[in-house]
């Protein structure tokens, strides 16, 4: 009892201390108290990339992954809420056995094991220890304690005694490391901040993981782990050095791609279907290319050109493949691969929202949907949640899509909005969604629906436009476009919702983003080198790894 009160008192002191001292690093950044440590389950992509980085890209990763959950708009936040279900564990176990077997098979053992055993048919303590120590550090993202290493070496030796094969013994000891919670989850630990007594921060290895998964979407490399081991990540200078190295690497593209994939809700592509009779041009290849086109366009704008994020909604530059050609009605010369393409200035297509990867994704299998598109723009790109529709919706006015009075979606939705219970939300979604009605369920351009001309005019929060390109311009100029990106990126980076107390820091980040020319790599640098990113809120400090994992 007394102890509890004492702790609460200590927390209050700590909180006060944090407010007083955080934020002196990046010029005028407002102080934040940070957030809790989080335990994030690796995404499928993070798992695959980690295995490729640790064991080589020729190691096959098979089987089904558990679905991710979207929370606060992001799968990256949902990752802090999900666990491993029985069937998910079964899959992890099978995958672990298959990976471990490949690593030690005849084709790989000589290049993957850091040593050779004295005999392939007998246990070799030293070599097994060397192998397991090496991979344990990479898989768990921190060194494995000596006692635990001995136990795993014991596992390897026992298995070798049964199988009569040194390498299969290694595989038996390696497999559990691949389904261990320390690999499947990113377990963060905090430590007292020696510079500021009473204040907590992430320990060096947790910092290394946060940086690596944010900037590269994969496990920390040897250099980053070494930096953590040597205490480099305990200093701002050391962190800056690593962040600059990572930002300069071509792997930054994987990091930005992973963020965009999550931010744009591209997991929906997994189940995207179009009616094959109405849209014979659609197939899985078109779907895959449509997804890749958006990502390629965005990476080109944001990373390759280090350009203004807002221009993504107005850019005429994109990339096409042969299979996308017919959908865009553009001849594509390249027989395979991607070809840069610029839509002419008078073309209706401008910006990410007019690409098939957006218009086809947010539509029904058999027809376009201004409501789904409007909802996606509001919720995903502007971070404005749209309330759920009332359960008892009266569709009396719009139920007949063949009604000669309501030939276009605009006609039908206008009638629908006459219903007071529907008007509130549809006013938010429809004017933006209807601007994209020139694109059918597949994303192909059209000027009429059921023989009636399509009117793509509308307004976004007061800014009027007459066509899809105008919507792109309005998105470019909308302050919510910017604040949503900044907030989403920070939530993505920390794996949690933004705390109320962090709002001044978020506002500051938005102002910096504007001053930095809306450049995403610079924004990433600001986040990755901030005190806020590594600060641990005092009310949630579990035991540090060093004490708990002796």
């Amino acid at each position, binding site marked *: 009892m007394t102890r509890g009160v004492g702790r609460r008192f200590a927390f209050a002191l700590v909180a006060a201390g944090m407010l007083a001292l955080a934020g002196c690093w990046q010029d005028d950044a407002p102080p934040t108290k940070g957030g*809790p*440590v989080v*335990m994030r389950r690796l995404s499928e992509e993070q798992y695959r990339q980690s295995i490729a980085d640790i064991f080589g890209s020729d190691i096959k990763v098979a089987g*089904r992954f*558990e*679905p991710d*959950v979207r929370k606060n708009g992001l799968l990256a936040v949902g990752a802090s*809420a*999900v*666990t*491993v*279900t*029985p*069937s*998910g*564990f*079964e899959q992890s*176990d099978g995958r672990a*056995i298959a990976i471990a077997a490949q690593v030690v098979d005849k084709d790989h053992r000589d290049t993957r094991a850091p040593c050779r055993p004295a005999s392939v048919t007998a246990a070799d303590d030293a070599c097994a220890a060397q192998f397991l120590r090496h991979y344990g550090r990479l898989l768990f993202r921190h060194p494995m304690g000596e006692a635990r290493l001995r136990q*795993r070496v014991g*596992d390897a030796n026992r*298995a070798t005694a*049964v199988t009569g094969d040194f390498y299969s013994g290694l595989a*038996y*000891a390696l*497999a*559990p490391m691949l389904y*261990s*919670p*320390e690999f*499947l*989850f990113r377990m963060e*630990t905090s430590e007292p901040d020696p510079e500021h007594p009473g204040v907590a921060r992430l320990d060096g290895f947790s910092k290394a993981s946060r940086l690596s998964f944010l900037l590269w979407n994969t496990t920390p490399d040897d250099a980053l782990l070494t930096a953590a081991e040597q205490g480099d990540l305990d200093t701002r200078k050391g962190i800056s050095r690593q962040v600059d190295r990572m930002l300069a690497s071509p792997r930054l593209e994987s990091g930005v791609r992973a963020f965009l994939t999550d931010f744009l809700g591209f997991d929906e592509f997994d189940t995207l*279907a179009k*009616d*094959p*009779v*109405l849209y014979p041009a659609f197939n899985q290849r078109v779907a895959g290319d449509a997804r890749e086109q958006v990502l390629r366009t965005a990476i080109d704008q944001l990373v390759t050109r280090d350009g203004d994020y807002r221009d993504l909604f107005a850019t005429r530059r994109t990339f096409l493949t042969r299979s996308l050609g017919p959908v865009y009605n553009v001849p594509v010369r390249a027989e395979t691969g991607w070809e840069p393409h610029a839509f002419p200035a008078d073309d209706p297509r401008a910006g990410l929202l007019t690409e098939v990867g957006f218009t086809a994704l947010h539509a*029904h*299998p*058999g*027809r376009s949907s201004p409501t789904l598109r409007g909802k996606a723009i509001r919720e995903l790109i502007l971070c404005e949640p749209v309330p*759920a*529709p009332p*359960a*008892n*919706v009266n*569709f009396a006015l*719009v*139920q*007949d*899509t063949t009604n000669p009075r309501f030939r276009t979606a605009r006609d039908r939705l206008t009638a629908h909005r006459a219903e007071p219970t529907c008007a509130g939300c549809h006013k938010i979604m429809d004017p933006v969604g209807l601007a994209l009605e020139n694109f059918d*369920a597949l994303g192909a351009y059209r000027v009429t629906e059921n023989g009636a001309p399509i009117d793509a005019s509308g307004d976004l929060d007061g800014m009027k436009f007459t066509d899809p390109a105008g919507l792109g311009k309005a998105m470019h100029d909308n302050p919510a476009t910017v604040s949503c990106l900044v907030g989403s990126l920070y939530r993505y980076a920390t794996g949690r919702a933004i705390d109320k107390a962090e709002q001044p820091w978020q506002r500051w980040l938005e102002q910096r983003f504007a001053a930095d020319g809306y450049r995403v790599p610079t924004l990433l640098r600001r986040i990755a080198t901030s005190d806020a990113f590594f600060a641990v809120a005092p009310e949630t*400090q*579990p*035991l*540090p*790894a060093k004490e*708990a*994992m002796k």
Partner: protein
Amino acid sequence: MISNLSRRSLLRTALRGAGVTVALPFLDCFLNDNGTALAGGAALPVRFGTWFWGCGMTAARWIPKTVGPGYEVTPELKPMAAYRDQVSLLTNFDVILDGAPNMAHISGPIGFRTGALPGGGADLPSFDVLIADVIGVNSRFRSLEVACTGDPKHSYSQRSAAVSNASETSPVALYTRIFGPEFQDPNAGDFKPDPKVMLRKSVMSEVRNERDALMKRVGAADRVRLDEYFTSLRQLEQQLELQLQKPPPAVACAVPSKPKDMEVGSEIEQVVATHTLMTQLVAMALACNQTRAFNVVFSNSSSVLRKNGTNTTHHQLTHEEPVDEKLGYQLEATYFLDRSMAAWGAFLETLAAVREGDGTLLDNSMVLAHSCTSYAKTHAIEGLPAMIAGKAGGRLRPGCHVDGNGTPASRIGFTAMQLMGVPADRWGQKSMTVTKPVNEIVV
């Protein structure tokens, strides 16, 4: 060589070649006289499963006018008419909102499955999980989840709101999981524990032994999640443990052949084809004692079912298709309901075709089918339609129509839990708290 082939497997091979499915006289020596129990006195296992379809029904065309046995086969029940006497209908049982908003297509299934509404702070397991925790502990899989729509997220089985049991969507993957290299034929003559399984189990305990140290490293909320991870690990350990013991004979087990690789998706013919394969695999997983619990999703809540060449999904149709003035119902939306009821009939047919003793697999099962809404057009969750098939080894009275008179739908899940041995004398939250099962169907 001969020692590896039991008389049984020779017999079965011969019969399979002839395309015959009958109970083998040889097998009946395992059974007592009335075919409900093994000769040693142990009862044949009773299985439990759910079968879900999306977007409800049309009350006037689905609900029979009379209650009790021998109920009228209404137009929307016609596709499963052959199984009327094996299926009890539970109509007029309500998911009660208690003033909470009706989250379309979510409040219904979650309220029905957990006895509490989503978003109300109650983060409860679904009854199928509670049942599997009791009946599934001695089988290789605690339960199997499948969806026929190609989307693993289509599942209504949950440990908690954040821990949904994802569905298997590929028949080939499900086959491999059950009948792949790790499958042990329960009727194989000889048995030798596999040293590989012993090694796997031994190294797995290494991770389990680190549990306490890892738990200390995380905060309270994450401790719950980590604990769920270790529960999952423990379950696989138990599966491995079972594989080290000689399995008891499974009288009706006939290992199916591997299904052909197929594309899965939401188009109705695709869904029905997937369902046919999934059903056969689930039936044999039950007959071969690989699991005692299952959850089948034919179509999801807010049904994505669609027909090639049309621009509207089942769900959209329920809202947008006009009610035919002469017929009084939505013609095109009802097409998908008919297909759903036909699939339900086919599911029962497959279970009933598996002979166990002098009964069938269906006789030894309790299968609870339900939907997400009653009338989908208005997202109504009053009178959420439910059906219970099978005799649950003699515990259930099949073929009754029961009118719930607006009592909570949680009574249905509660009844299932009680029949399956979950120790509970009350279940559900707020107005859905119940203490009385649906006695009309209980023997």
